């Protein structure tokens, strides 16, 4: 079982106006099998946390540490992190023209496993996972994210999670912009991964709606670059009723 340990993480980004600190001391531990919901207002730094963990070059880590099973994640390159088991479902997945989904998935799977998957089981796995997510088989031959609707992009992210079997999955607003049906399909995908693997999940969201489908073990309130409060599922309900005002006032 994997453990991702984030300690006092600070990160900055360079802007035309100068260097700006966005993460201001994040402490969080995620164990395999656990689901942590991260909720917080726009601009509080949730995506930055996700990107920083995945190793996006835009963000500089200025303080703190991140380890996965004791290994220093911050020392790893972007692709090494993914191969170590960290997966990031992105809030805004980018298009990759000329690269088909099927080619992309196979290349990624080969990279993550260190060997090409056996052709027969792989084709079946992909087809099965696409079926589960109600994705038309034609998607396999389309270019990665090109012309995908918002909901299709999110399903495609979960498809990758299902196939790559990470030990830690960070889902950045995978629920945003989905209608109820799509939300259910995507949530089922997440729950399947939880059942079948020991994945630890960081579920970043604005809305409590997804928490009706994917049950969190912990809820964290993320405000102004750090975790302001944490609790169990009941905290989500309180946020639903009270909003973030209390935390925002405290943070300022």
């Amino acid at each position, binding site marked *: 079982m994997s453990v991702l340990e984030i300690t006092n993480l600070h990160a900055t980004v360079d*802007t035309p106006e100068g260097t700006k600190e966005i993460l201001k001391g994040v402490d969080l531990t995620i164990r395999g099998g656990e689901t942590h919901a991260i909720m917080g207002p726009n601009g509080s730094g949730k995506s930055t946390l996700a990107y920083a963990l995945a190793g*996006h*070059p*835009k963000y500089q880590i200025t303080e703190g540490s991140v380890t996965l099973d004791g290994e220093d994640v911050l020392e790893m390159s972007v*692709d090494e992190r993914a191969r170590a088991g960290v997966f990031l479902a*992105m809030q805004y*997945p980018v298009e990759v023209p*000329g690269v088909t989904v099927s080619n992309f998935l196979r290349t990624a799977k080969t990279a993550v496993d260190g060997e090409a998957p056996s052709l027969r089981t792989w084709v079946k796995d992909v087809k099965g996972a696409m079926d589960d997510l109600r994705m038309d088989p034609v998607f396999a031959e389309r270019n990665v994210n090109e012309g995908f609707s918002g909901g299709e992009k999110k399903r495609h992210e979960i498809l990758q999670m299902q196939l790559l079997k990470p030990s830690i999955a960070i889902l950045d607003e995978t629920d945003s912009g989905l209608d109820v049906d799509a939300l259910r399909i995507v949530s089922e995908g997440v729950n399947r991964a939880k059942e079948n693997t020991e994945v630890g999940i960081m579920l970043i969201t604005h809305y409590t709606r997804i928490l009706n489908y994917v049950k969190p073990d912990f809820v964290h309130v993320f405000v102004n670059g750090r975790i302001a409060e944490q609790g169990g599922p009941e905290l989500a309900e309180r946020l639903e009723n009270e909003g973030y005002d209390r935390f925002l006032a405290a943070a300022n």
Partner: protein
Amino acid sequence: MTTSTTEGTETTQERSDGEIVGGAAGAAPVAARATIDGLAPVAPQLEDERLTLPADGPAKHAATSRAARPRSFELGDHPVPTSKIEEWRFTPLRRFTSLFQDDATEDGAVDHAVTVPEGAPEASTLAIGEAPRGTALVPEDLTAAIASARTEQALHLVAPRNAELAEPFRVEITGRGADRRANGHLVLETEESSTATFVLNHTGSAQYAQNVEMIVGDNSRMTVIALQDWDDDALHISTHHAKLGRDAKLKHIVVSLGGSAVRVNAIGEFSAPGAELENTGLYFADENQFLEHRLFVDHAAPNCTSDVAYKGALQGQKARSVWVGDVLIRKEAEGTSTYELNRNLVLTEGARADSVPNLEIETGEIEGAGHAAATGRFDDEQLFYLRARGIPEKEARRLVVRGFFAELIQKIDVPEIREHLFESIEAELTRSMN
């Protein structure tokens, strides 16, 4: 006469510490965006205009209309190129000096090995002035005039009337030394209702002035694939001139990967209604390499269609590409449909791409006309996305560049050339990444 010229936004992109230099001649740089440490993403910018009607008002560029360019076999009618002349303003003239000199071909400087497919007559030759030589290509610049005057016997390859040639004609053009000067003139012809493919493969090295004349007969289908696979020190200026008959189809493909400095000027002329021209181009400029592609599509007949798509990648210090696409829709060319596209992918710092689409419209009765040009840096967000799935950086870059060209390579009907191209691109990438 109403004329409207839309000079598409001319773009220039240089990559050096994320600094982007705008184009000349008062055109707005398309890709001007601040970047941070060369790391912030700059998605390829797209300038897209679709015109369906001529604009009112005076013709801004009437004086320099593409139609006004003189055509002549006389060397004296063509000025020696200077950078003040519009069509040469991007070209490194000093590098090409030898190709502006009226020199004869040195013995054995360039070999032509011809393979003729079953169903076609043996290769023959045409003397200067012997038709159909000179019926399509009349030189529009000095180098073309020299190449014509200095080639006494032009190679003539013909697909006979109604013939469907399954295999391509192949011309292996091999340069025998970077210091050796050569001239060449080829005449490719598809007679009425025939189908044929011509592959011109340039390898080795030379200083080569070349004309390729294409006579696309009524209702025939011609495919031409010109591969500039030269060694690193070759110089090559080539004028391709096609004349399309009624209901004719030409698929014209230019692939420039090798050479020190290469300039290909491809002209397509519609002489009768119902014809179709597809211009595809692919180039990959390396360190110190100069690759220029110019197109002129002359819609001089009604109901013709043209579709231009050129894509280029650049890498390394002083890698340089120029693309200029002129489309003229003449008054009589009603029912024209045309689209042109140029995309450039600047992979490293120190490389520069210029892109100038140019549409001149003299009639309002057209189906559609548009152009798009974009020059983008390598998209770091794409790279991040692929790497975040465990794909190592080199492989991720390879996927993206392959993907960038894939759509064009798929258009090439000769499988072994397709395969060869994927391999060549892979080799180019490997070179840059080690």
